[in-house]
């Protein structure tokens, strides 16, 4: 296969961002015929790696029970009402759970067991989501208090500066260690669910 030395140097310059094609290369690639170039034995290996990576990427985004439930319902096209009756919760309580507005401690262990079984959630993943959701609900009032102290109505620049200060303070306090009695209650719940 001929490769002209000028073309090689130009390609190097293209990869290093010295030469630009203003989208012409991207358009050309879209129009090229794909030639099967993968050995058949390697294809399943890559598919497995990509599936694992995709599962990891989704898991990393689903930090709380609410985000998980909303994502999972959207995946199967289910409504909150259906899910509430399936797991045995009143609709309004389930809606609070969907939006991380209720502490997991207020949901009975048997409901958590139904949620875990229905969505086939690994024990450690459910435990992590319950813990983070409880932290979020428990610390939300103190976030609000901090933000309220810094609330400022005087112009965009001053408002931005106030938000920056509030964010700095929140980061400084972001160890999110629960008080011992809350931690104890959380552990009791997790033990009762049997994760």
């Amino acid at each position, binding site marked *: *296969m*001929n*490769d*002209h*030395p*000028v*073309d*090689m*140097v*130009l*390609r*190097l*310059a*293209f*990869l*290093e*961002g*010295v*030469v*630009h*094609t203003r*989208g*012409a*290369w*991207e*358009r*050309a*690639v*879209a*129009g*090229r015929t*794909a*030639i*099967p*170039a*993968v*050995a058949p034995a*390697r294809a399943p290996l*890559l*598919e497995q*790696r*990509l599936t694992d*990576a*995709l599962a*990891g*990427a989704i898991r*990393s*985004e689903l930090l709380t029970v609410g985000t998980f439930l909303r994502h999972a319902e959207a995946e199967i096209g289910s409504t909150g009402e259906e899910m509430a009756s399936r797991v045995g919760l009143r609709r309004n309580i389930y809606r609070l759970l969907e939006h991380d507005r209720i502490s997991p401690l207020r949901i009975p262990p048997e409901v958590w067991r139904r949620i875990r079984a229905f969505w086939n959630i690994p024990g450690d993943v459910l435990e992590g989501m319950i813990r983070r959701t409880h932290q979020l609900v428990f610390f939300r009032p103190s976030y609000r208090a901090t933000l309220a102290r810094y609330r400022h109505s005087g112009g965009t620049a001053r408002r931005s500066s106030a938000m920056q200060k509030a964010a700095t303070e929140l980061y400084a306090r972001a160890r999110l260690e629960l008080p011992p009695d809350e931690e104890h209650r959380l552990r009791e719940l997790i033990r009762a669910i049997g994760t």
Partner: protein
Amino acid sequence: MDLYQQRLIGEAIHVFHIPPLDAEELVDDALLTVIERIGTFVFRKGDGDFHVWVLAIFRNRARDFMRKWASTGALEVAFDETRAGEGEECTAAEREVLGEIVRRYAEETRVLDENRDGEGRGPLAEIGRALDALESWERVLLRCRALAIPYEDIAEYTGKNVHHLRVYHQRVRKKFLAMLTVSLETKHERSSR
């Protein structure tokens, strides 16, 4: 993913002249990066955004591969193996000019930290300057043909007909090489004073 995998491996092998096994590994890594960062991708202008984003990741991986090749000396070997088509051989002086750019790129890659942004750009800056000295359609022709963009597409971008572009491609390469030689000689003269 199947579509992108085949298309990108083809691009790596046939356009960037990366050996097949390395090309497969490079594309696997690029697609893994796509999956891992899918949460950060945002549509801004339209459906084409995703394609451009995937190709940007692929291009960065290909660049990293070239830097790795350069740091091990394999790039210089690959350059020595490049061959012009029949009837468009480079003179020894022209090859020397291009070879010097590749050598300096490889040296800089070896010296600089791998993660530093802008690495390897210095020696390639001469390429940009020599291209700027060409006419606009000549620049487009050279840049696009180096990436195997079809003559038909280039005809649309430049307003020239396909036959004209085919005939002139070789001449434009010669003109570019001549400008690059002058540009580098002038630089050497200035630095020796």
